[in-house]
């Protein structure tokens, strides 16, 4: 989905597709960033018994607060993490962001292990992560807002860091740097062993934190979401490639094994069943909600891949193969371009569905083409 694997300007519904792509890519980067901190915390603190728990799906303060992550180091110290790609300098946006951060200023209980046990650390700080393209502007605007509205400034420290994906040398990586301006907060992590103190590395030494893909990909593959609501296209794609296959019967799979994998199989389900599957089995503890799944099923219905039957659904599931017309060409069959990537295809089907158009589906041959046949060898 990140970038169409087909070439050229071929979008037939540019605005619709562009919107879905942007949403998809931004959320995926959010998942990356949370996975970076998740992996860093697990490697550096949990595995060395210097940290208790990274909560990827925190729900704090009577379940009303949903920061992007929390890190509980010990009974003395914790960090609440909030990711904001950018902060617009309009007063409304600043007030909203400041109010959100202020809510994290209350006495918070952090999840301390996978069983749900919670601990209220003596101190917690608030980590605000901004994309490097907008970080300085956002941090200055927020600080100015607090200067004008002193009662809105949290008592606990707010530490502003920037993140970006660096491709500058042979090894691509995410970099996280603490912004070096006078009013930026400090991590009050003095109770941690000196060699594991974040403030010493990120603040005093001004050393950027770096996470290469090899460090976080396993975490990303397992956890797949973050605490924000996923855009419907992202949730739909994950349902298609990760969740629906687990609902297939052996008999349904045998049909594909023997014949074409594009033959549709009907999967009866409900948004409640999918919510339970996701939150209890696939990513235990994740905060994917029933109404978000309902939206994804509506998305599939628009895309022609699901049908509502009263309160239940039937997903019309199969491998996807389709073609789309290159822009400016309407009749020439030879100009049709193959699509093979689920995110792109689901987006295309949805955007065409919105306009009442049917996608150009392809049927895969029932029998695999015998590759490099023995018959040709002799």
């Amino acid at each position, binding site marked *: 989905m990140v970038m169409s694997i087909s070439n050229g300007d071929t979008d037939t519904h540019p605005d619709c597709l562009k919107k879905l792509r942007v949403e998809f890519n931004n959320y995926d980067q959010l998942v990356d960033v949370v996975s970076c901190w998740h992996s860093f915390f697990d490697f550096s603190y949990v595995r060395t018994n210097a940290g208790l728990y990274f909560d990827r799906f925190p729900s704090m303060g009577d379940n009303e607060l949903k920061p992007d992550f929390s890190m509980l180091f010990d009974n003395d110290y914790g960090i609440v993490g909030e990711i904001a790609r950018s902060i617009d300098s309009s007063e409304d946006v600043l007030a909203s962001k400041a109010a959100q951060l202020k809510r994290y200023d209350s006495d918070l209980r952090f999840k301390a292990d996978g069983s749900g046990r919670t601990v209220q650390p003596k101190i917690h700080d608030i980590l605000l992560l901004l994309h490097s393209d907008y970080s300085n502007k956002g941090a200055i605007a927020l600080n100015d807002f607090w200067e004008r509205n002193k009662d809105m400034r949290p008592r606990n420290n707010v530490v502003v860091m920037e993140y970006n994906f660096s491709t500058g040398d042979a090894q691509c990586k995410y970099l996280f740097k603490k912004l070096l301006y006078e009013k930026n907060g400090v991590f009050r992590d003095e109770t941690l062993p000196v060699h*594991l103190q974040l403030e010493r590395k990120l603040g005093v030494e001004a050393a950027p934190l770096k996470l290469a893909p090899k460090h976080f990909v396993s975490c990303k593959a397992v956890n797949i979401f973050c605490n924000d609501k996923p855009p419907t296209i992202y949730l739909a794609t994950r349902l298609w490639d990760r969740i629906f296959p687990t609902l297939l019967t052996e008999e349904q799979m045998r049909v594909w094994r023997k014949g074409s994998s594009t033959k549709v199989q009907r999967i009866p389900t409900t948004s409640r069943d999918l919510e339970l599957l996701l939150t209890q089995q696939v990513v235990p503890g994740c905060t994917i909600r029933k109404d978000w799944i309902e939206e994804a099923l509506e998305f599939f219905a628009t895309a022609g891949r699901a049908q509502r039957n009263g309160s239940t659904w039937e997903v019309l599931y199969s491998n996807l193969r389709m073609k789309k017309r290159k822009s400016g060409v309407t009749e020439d069959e030879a100009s049709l371009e193959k699509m093979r990537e689920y995110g792109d295809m689901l987006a295309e089907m949805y955007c065409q569905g919105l306009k009442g158009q049917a996608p150009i589906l392809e049927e895969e041959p029932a029998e695999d083409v015998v590759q490099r046949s023995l018959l040709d060898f002799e």
Partner: protein
Amino acid sequence: MVNRSSGAGYGLDKLVVPGQDLGLSNLLALLRDSFSREYKGKLSAVIFTSEEEPIGVLRGCCDEEYTIESDGQQEFSPIRLTRKMEGSESQEAQTLAGTFYVVRIGEGMWVSVTIEPDEFIEKAMIRFFELCSPGISRMRYSSSEIRKLLDSFVETHELEAKVRKAITYPYGGGASIDFDNKPLVQLFDECTSGRRYLDKIRIEFFRADKSLCDAFVSRQGILRFYSGDIDFFFKKLLSLFAGVARDTKLILEKRERRMGELTASPLAIQFEEDVLVTADDNNRFVRSLSSLEKSGISVYHQNPYVHLSFLDFRDGSSCDVFAVSPRSICIVPSYRSSIESLMRLSNRILESLGEGQLSDWGEAAPDFGDFFV
């Protein structure tokens, strides 16, 4: 493809019919007698894995199209397979039938042996095995594995090797090139210099100018004996390839995630050189996986690192695939993960990018200091 500790052989020297002093030399005679017809001059062996007795798995896969007959009383019983293919607009109805033996060659490792023609092997026997995934998984070999094994084989047994015919392909796709009558070393040197991989090879081994064995090996895990010393073929050559297949099985098996748990057992493919450097490299890589039959992908990230989800419609296996550096790929299997599917995927990755070794991910855990610039 596999990070091997040794090229030691594996158990085929114990291949005997239970209760009889019947060595490998008699296998061909047994096959001839069983088939009651003229021996066509080649014997084919397909290496596969199965945790259960294969006959039980095969019976479970039968339907109106595929049927098997076997008395199943002996460990070494012939299996008669019939495939009735329905006709279509482009193809007439056809029935393929033939007989093969299944022989245990180690824990969870088996070889099917037959003298039937290629059409039966490809369109009936192998196709039937594929339908039985994940119960049965065929093994495959990389070009570099075949090279290492053949080099070591020639050296260990003090042989000379002459390539009678070989078929190679360029990495990333393209037309095949056939090589005829070349020394083994020259074939592989030309593969390396032309960035091509070996797909199949017919090779004749000599000792003191006397032909010892005329054999065939393919990436698809098919070995073949044409002429010479059949004991040598089974006990030495097939045994060597079975050993590597066992190593591959040990790496690929039991990788499934468990529902309700947040743990994974990732695999790595490490390449000998930088293969994913530019955005075009990544695009080609994604395209090559997207074109694999009966499978689909979702791309979550494409540049500069690749993250895609791979779904295999042959048996429902799925995994996440990450290109994490120019010469390293990480595969994180999901809730269903068959050896067959991981072999199919990794084989396509190697064909697409170049020679690499499959291993446990096993990245050394970084410590706090490693995370800072």
